[in-house]
Every structure is written in structure tokens, then in C-alpha cells.
């Protein structure tokens, strides 16, 4: 048990910093979007999800030049299956931890960046040696090139999602039931542990090393009353010009939640290898006894369209605090005697409160009428802000695209692409750099898709 506690923490240490990546581009199947650095010039996707006003804005594909839908051409998947035959996955070194060629970094890279599209430049997989110097009063961990895997700041993964939104309405009003799921797992290394793993600093006697964990997950439903409408319109009401306002009021009905906080670590004695270090696990776990969370929150969105220009801002889950009237609070501690983790109830049928993170999107697009469209968006889905800026130039049957983005790790990424449209069919290619891997170096992916107009 003792080994598992710290082992698990360090496993997360290694893996978690790489998870909170920009999901907006990486899970899109639209090659056009990849070619523009991740920005979406259409009125679907992020803006419709995060801006309540866009419920009233028509998504005119003839105006925006966007296809009705895109079908990805999964060259990456074909290549992956070629290298990893499906009938041999059981013995494939990539998935077989017992193989000497098993590389968990490679496996994580596949998870973080599913091989749908073709990887022109694959992310490097650290294969450096790890050197440990062990003495009675000495422990040095030199991870070599893999030190970059150790995060410098708080890290983790999380998301705030709306799993469904069922309902209908009229006259701009809308009644629906929304499903929500929010989770956030954060870790913070103390400076001692960070120095040991990242800088190969010697473990010091009489010192403590720990990871602070703060994890929460909650899910439920939210009956919603919403309105979205065009408050003003331009000279020609048939166009989309005007000022749009949208809002929604949610009554959150929490089904379940859990939250764990506290440190996991150990304290080394006066001689590092003289005695077993003191394990420190003193965490608090709160869980709901019943599906009785409740709270109120709202969304607000505005959009303004004037000819070729449109801009919008949507903010969601404002003031969304859930009160859980029947929860259990447990303390989880490690006990040297018995080498075990034990939990004890320190409070039952007590009230707890949770919050949903505020998510937002700000978007702008300019359709210049000369076949040129430029756009940008700023999206925060609950864990870090992602910025996309991109442009598309159409010339006859052809389209040229480019863009940049700043991902959740605050690194610049780049995209370039092109397309050919023949009547209702189009073929699009987008090249983009990304950091969806364990490595700090960029990889380059080529997205390909058939677009149906």
C-alpha cells in the first residue's frame, strides 16, 4: 500500500501535465479548421456551445462558405493499423507492458493525440537513460531528458461539459434539460520534490516531499429556461445583421459529486536509507449521500453582426454554486502500523458546496467579400484559455488557409492548409503543429477531409 500511494502520485505526475491540452482542435474532424490554427469561422462548434445568443443566429453555410459537414480521411488511422495490425494487438509491444519495447510514453502520445490524421512529424518519445545514485545517505534521481515531463507549476486535467441539451421552444424562448459533467484534478508539487525530479537535486535528510492534490467531479441535470433573439436588425431584415442577445437560467440538480483534497508525500529521516520514511497522507474526501445537489446559475451571450463582420461573447455557468445538503466527509490517512490507508467518517449528513467553473468564448469573424475570411476566438472551457486566429482565402475552386493559436500550455501553434471545391464536394488538407504529446517539442499533423456542401 505504501508503495502504491506515492507511486500513484508520481504516475500522475508524469502523465497529468500532458493532459490539459487544447481539445478544440485536436478532436475536430474538420481539416479546414486545422489549417486555420484551430479557429472556426462557422457559426457552430464553440460559439454555439458557449454563446447563448448564437441560438438565434442562423448558420448559413452559403454565407460563411462552410460545408454542411466534413468526413475525415483517416490516413493516420490507416497508417496506425498498418503498423499495429488489429489481429496482433494482444502481442503488440505498444500495448504489452511485458514487452521490452513497451514505451508508456508512446502509448500516452496515442491517447493524447488519437491517430486519426497522418502524423508528418511525430512527437519524440523520450528514450533517455534514467540514473539513480543510491547511498546510505544519498539519493539522486537524474531523469535526463525526461526532466521536461515534470511540471513546474500546478498541473492537472479538467473539463466542464454539457452532455446533452434536450428541449424546444418558440419565439426565441427555449425550455430544455441540460446534462452537465464537470471534473477537475489538480496537482502541485512542493519545491523539494520538484527539485529532486526536475533538477536532479539530492534528496535531503530530514526533509519532506509531497504532492498536493485537489480533485473534484460532479454531474447532474439542469432544467433550463432560455431566450435568444435578435433585438435589432439592419436595413434589410432578411440578412443576419443585427444585435443578438441570449441568456439562460439553469436550476442545477446535482446527481453526484466527490471532492478530495490534501497532501500525499513522505518525510525522510536523518539518514535517507536508514529507516522507512514517514508517509504523509492526510486527505479529506467529500461525497454526496444522495442526488440532492441544487443551485442556480446562468448563461449570457451577445452577438453583433453587421454585414461582413460579426463578433460575439458568451459566458456560461455564472454564479453556478451547488449546495449538497447531504454529504459525507471522510478523512483518509496513512498508518505506518499495518502499512495501510484508513478512512474515518468525520462528518455525515452535512452540507457541502461546489461551484461550476465559468466558461466563455469570445469570437470575431470578418468576411471581406473578396473570398477572404478572417477570424479569431478565445475559448476557456474551464481549464485554461485557448486563442485561435486564422484566415481563409478562396480563389475560384481553391482555398488557402492559415492560422496560429496559443494552446492551454501557452505555447504557440501554427496551421496552414488548402482546399479544392467541386460543386457539392470538396477536399481539404490542413497541416498544424500541436503539443498533444508527452514531449515539449511540437509535432506536425496533416488533416484531410472531404467536405459536403
Amino acid at each position, binding site marked *: 500500500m505504501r508503495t502504491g500511494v*506515492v*507511486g500513484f502520485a508520481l504516475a500522475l505526475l508524469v502523465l497529468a501535465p500532458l493532459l490539459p491540452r487544447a481539445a478544440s482542435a485536436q478532436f475536430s474532424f474538420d481539416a479546414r479548421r486545422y489549417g486555420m490554427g484551430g479557429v472556426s469561422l462557422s457559426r457552430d462548434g464553440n460559439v454555439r456551445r458557449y454563446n447563448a445568443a448564437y441560438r438565434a443566429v442562423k448558420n448559413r453555410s452559403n454565407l460563411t462558405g462552410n460545408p454542411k459537414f466534413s468526413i475525415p480521411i483517416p490516413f493516420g488511422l490507416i497508417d496506425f493499423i498498418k503498423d499495429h495490425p488489429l489481429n496482433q494487438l494482444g502481442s503488440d509491444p505498444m500495448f504489452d507492458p*511485458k514487452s521490452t519495447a513497451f514505451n*508508456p510514453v508512446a502509448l500516452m502520445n496515442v491517447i493524447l493525440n488519437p491517430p486519426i490524421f497522418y502524423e508528418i512529424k511525430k512527437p519524440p518519445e523520450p528514450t533517455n*537513460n*534514467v540514473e539513480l545514485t543510491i547511498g546510505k545517505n544519498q539519493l539522486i534521481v537524474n531523469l*535526463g531528458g525526461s526532466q521536461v515531463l515534470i511540471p513546474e507549476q500546478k498541473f492537472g486535467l479538467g473539463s466542464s461539459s454539457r452532455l446533452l441539451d434536450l428541449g424546444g421552444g418558440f419565439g426565441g424562448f427555449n425550455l430544455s434539460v441540460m446534462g452537465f459533467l464537470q471534473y477537475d484534478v489538480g496537482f502541485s508539487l512542493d519545491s523539494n520534490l520538484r527539485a529532486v525530479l526536475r533538477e536532479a537535486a539530492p534528496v535531503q535528510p530530514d526533509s519532506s516531499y509531497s504532492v498536493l492534490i485537489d480533485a473534484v467531479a460532479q454531474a447532474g441535470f439542469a432544467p433550463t429556461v432560455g431566450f435568444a433573439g435578435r433585438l435589432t436588425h439592419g436595413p434589410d431584415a432578411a440578412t443576419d445583421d443585427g444585435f443578438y442577445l441570449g441568456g439562460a437560467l439553469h436550476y442545477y440538480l446535482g446527481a453526484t459529486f466527490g471532492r478530495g483534497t490534501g497532501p500525499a508525500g513522505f518525510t525522510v529521516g536523518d539518514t535517507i*536509507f536508514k529507516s522507512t520514511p514517514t508517509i504523509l497522507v492526510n486527505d479529506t474526501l467529500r461525497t454526496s449521500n444522495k442526488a440532492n445537489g441544487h443551485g442556480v446559475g446562468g448563461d449570457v451571450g451577445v452577438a453583433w453582426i453587421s454585414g461582413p463582420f460579426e463578433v460575439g461573447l458568451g459566458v456560461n455557468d455564472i454564479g453556478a454554486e451547488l449546495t449538497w445538503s447531504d454529504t459525507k466527509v471522510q478523512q483518509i490517512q496513512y498508518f505506518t502500523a499495518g502499512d495501510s490507508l484508513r478512512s474515518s467518517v468525520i462528518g455525515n449528513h452535512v452540507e457541502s458546496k461546489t461551484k461550476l467553473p465559468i466558461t466563455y468564448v469570445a469570437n470575431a469573424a470578418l468576411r471581406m467579400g473578396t473570398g477572404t475570411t478572417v477570424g479569431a476566438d478565445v475559448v476557456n472551457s474551464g481549464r485554461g484559455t485557448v486563442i485561435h486566429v486564422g484566415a481563409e482565402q478562396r480563389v475560384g475552386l481553391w482555398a488557402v488557409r492559415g492560422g496560429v493559436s496559443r494552446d492551454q500550455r501557452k505555447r504557440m501553434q501554427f496551421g496552414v492548409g488548402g482546399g479544392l471545391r467541386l460543386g457539392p464536394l470538396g477536399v481539404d488538407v490542413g497541416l498544424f503543429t500541436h503539443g498533444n504529446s508527452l514531449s515539449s517539442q511540437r509535432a506536425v499533423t496533416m488533416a484531410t477531409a472531404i467536405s459536403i456542401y
Partner: protein
Amino acid sequence: MKAFASALLVVVAACGEGKAIFNVDVYSFMAGTGKDTIPYVIPPSSSASPSTFQRILLPPGFGSSIVDSVKITSGNVNLINSGGTGTIGLVLRFAADSAGTITAPPALSIPATAVTGAQTVPVAISGDLSPTINALFTRDTLWTRITATGTNPGLTPVTGKGALTALVVRVVLQDRIF
């Protein structure tokens, strides 16, 4: 310390096909305990093989790993001879338990060094250990025994002690920790 060492395995695993290298300062575990010296008294016209032994702790979880090599990268014994003329050689053995180190085949043999009278002779210990013991280094605990193999062709006893001053074992392995 197993907790931390085990946790490190996860980090080691993240380095893919890279090797895991352990530099174990065996001497640091022996220093000051009395096990870092091997007193010897070799009667005239005879030989003797006094020894000392030490347990070595390694991070657990490498049972499935493949040891590429084990070598002593830094080692030294000072033969502090106090009387007599003879030779002192050194033999290192490794085994899974302390008793096994008595009968284990030598993993490394240091040629005999001549000693005479009251003198201190430094003897370097280095070299690759016999591959036959590689598997031992996938264990989290193993034992080593250092034997001084002394000969005394003379008529007076050869007396003194071997004082270990350094012993670092370098283990290189292909980690298979899952």
C-alpha cells in the same frame, strides 16, 4: 524508502526504451559499522580467507527486468598490514541471502597484492562482474561478501586488515517493471 523508490519506477518507465542505471554506493552502507574492515591473521606457511558481508537494497519492482551489466566503477581497499610478508587477494561474491555468499562463485577477483611489514597498500577494485550474477540485481535485496584471500609463505604471521574506502556498483538494466 521503498515507497519513494517504487514511485521512481513510474518515472523510469516514462523514459521508454531508455535504460535504468543504478549507482549504488555500497561502501556508504558499510562505513562506520565495522563491516568495512576485514581483519586478517594468516599463520605461517598457510592461507586464510576472512571476509565481511553487506546487504544491498535496491528499488523493488525490477523483477522482470533484464540486467545488461553490473560493474564496479569505483572501489578501493587499503591493505593495512601490520606484520609479516605475504599476499592478499580480494574476491567479491553476491547472492540472494547472506549464507549464499559463502558458496557463491566469485563475481570479481582482484589479483593478490604483496604485503610486507608495516605498510598500507591501496588496492583498486573495479571491473565488470560476472554476468552469471546479473539476475540477482533485479531483486530488491541482495547480499555481497568481500573475502580477503591471504597466503603466507613465511615463518611469521601476516597480520593486518583490509579497510574498504570506496565501493560503487553500477547496474544497468532494461526496465520491465509492469
